[in-house]
């Protein structure tokens, strides 16, 4: 079996507040193979976006990484100095942000924002070459080159997100992290863009970490899916296996909540209650207050991730391999 391109081991992230640190990501381990599409799902605040930004180490204060390793192509990103990190960013790992409206600089043109990425990494010998390459990149996401001179506010939401994708692909990265890339868009544009990304991924073969709270889309796109709950990884399995045989009660609830046909609004009513506060998570399994099948043990001890098959694992006292 090939070496994973990205190997997250025991990664923990804290948000420091005046009342002490709050753990937003708790001992998470996850591998990505080259060219693999891994989906990461969970309710908002479960730690999925925190993990994405922690990988690139761009989480702003008051976040600190409190432990673990992020091995990328064998090197630990958490042990790198600023210079090495800067080269690693975008040349090897790129990211599409949640809201392209907020992620694009409002005072620079689209062309400038693509070109400066190329120039910063020496990927274009001259300003002219950078512009030509930027035009080409816009072309790959279906935007005409005359949009190079446009400012972000002059583009539609879908176009802005396409620009975000073009920027992500600028340096031919080995891994692209998609951090809920379509939440701000309407359903039709969302589907178009996801299909485009899928096609680009097939053509270029980069690995993808696809973060979303929309399980249905993810199951269509991802090879493997990881489910997060309250800062922890609770289940990971190949997409097909997860759909047919999810083992964690939370995953099962999520699957019931997202009908396989696109049927309007998300309905989480099959899981009563809401995720716990990370400031004071419940004792034992963090899901037990919402779990229909919880037993005494769930209230006492926190479950470990247990292997249930070659690529399937879940953290629940009620499942055994």
């Amino acid at each position, binding site marked *: 079996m090939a070496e994973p391109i990205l190997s997250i081991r025991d990664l923990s992230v804290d948000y*420091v507040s005046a009342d002490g640190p709050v753990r937003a990501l708790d001992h998470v381990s996850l591998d990505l193979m080259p060219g693999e599409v891994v989906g990461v799902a969970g309710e908002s605040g479960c730690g999925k976006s925190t993990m994405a930004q922690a990988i690139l*180490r*761009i989480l702003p*204060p*008051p976040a600190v990484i409190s432990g673990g390793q992020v091995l990328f192509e064998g090197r630990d990103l958490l042990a790198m100095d600023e210079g090495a990190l800067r080269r690693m960013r975008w040349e090897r790992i790129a990211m599409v942000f949640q809201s392209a409206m907020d992620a694009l600089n409002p005072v620079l043109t689209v062309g400038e924002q693509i070109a400066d990425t190329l120039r910063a990494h020496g990927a274009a010998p001259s300003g002219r070459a950078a512009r030509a390459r930027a035009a080409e990149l816009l072309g790959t996401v279906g935007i005409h080159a005359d949009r190079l001179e446009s400012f972000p506010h002059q583009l539609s939401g879908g176009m802005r997100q396409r620009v975000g994708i073009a920027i992500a692909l600028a340096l031919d990265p080995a891994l692209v992290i998609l951090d809920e890339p379509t939440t701000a868009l309407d359903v039709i544009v969302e589907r178009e863009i996801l299909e485009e990304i899928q096609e680009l991924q097939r053509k270029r073969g980069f690995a993808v970490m696809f973060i979303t709270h929309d399980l249905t889309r993810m199951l269509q796109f991802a090879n493997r899916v990881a489910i997060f709950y309250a800062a922890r990884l609770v289940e990971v399995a190949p997409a097909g296996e997860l759909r047919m045989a999810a083992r964690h009660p939370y995953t099962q609830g999520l699957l019931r909540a997202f009908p396989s046909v696109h049927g309007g609004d998300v309905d989480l009513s099959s899981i009563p209650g809401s995720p716990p506060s990370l400031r004071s998570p419940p004792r034992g399994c963090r899901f037990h207050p919402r779990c229909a099948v919880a037993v005494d043990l769930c209230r006492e001890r926190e479950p470990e991730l247990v292997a249930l098959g070659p690529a399937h694992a879940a953290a629940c006292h009620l499942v055994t391999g």
Partner: protein
Amino acid sequence: MTAPASRRSTGARAWLDAIRRDRKASVGALILVLFALLAVVGPLLVGDPTALVAVPLEPPSSAHWLGTTGQGQDVLAQTVVGTRVSLLIGFAVGIVVVLVGSLVGVTAGYFGGRVDGMLSLLFNVFLVIPGLPLAIVLAAYLPSGPLTVAAVLVFTGWAWNARVVRGQTLSLRRRDFVLASVVSGESSLRIITREILPNMTSLLVAQVIGSSVYAIGALVGLEFLGLGDVSSVTWGTNLYWASNDSALLTGAWWTYVPTGVCVALVGFGLVMLNSGFDEITNPRLQMERAWRAHLAAAGQPASRSTPVVVRDG
């Protein structure tokens, strides 16, 4: 539905504790308390500031710690006595400026539409007309006296507060608890006084502090030009006389340095108090402070990339 305003229940005591814990706020508060004491009891401890006690322009000595003015008055007595009137007018103007500004700002922000359009236009016009020249012309026309100066300063200074309070009202107006009160048919006056203003308390306190800085500075400036009552003893008139008596040409620095230092210390105290309040009430600053402390405890620099601080191995 009740407004989440009632932070007042924590009381003045909580505020005092918070001030004590914040370095800037304590420095500011300490300076202001000292000057308040000086204004209240100071005049009782020094002699008549207008009495001609010695030879004019005598440098500081054991008899006259801060020397004498161009007319032979005691500079220390003048500075101390000047504190009372200057601070009284300054803070009074600061408070009235915020009252007027808030009234206009809340009205504009709450009622919106045409009312907002007219009032916003009014304060925006006042904001671009340079205040000091207008104040000078106004003060020159009106009969001189402390009330005139105070009125002129309110007239030229209210617009900024109106603008800030309007913005804050607009955002509160859209909040659920206000909308609920509007729907339940409560009177506008009640909503403004019970729901909106209480939720702006910390903003209004900051505005009073900021306006007092403006008022004291402008007051001293107008009096320096001779537009106050030049026969009274205030910080501004002290500087007016120092300049009139050619203190500069004779090198009599002691006639204007003490007053200037007092003005600056009061202004500095107010600014520190305000930025201290900001540190106390701004959750973002609080968080960042905690973050820095967390890194410092681990002996880590605050790196640009997310720092790695391993505590639990």
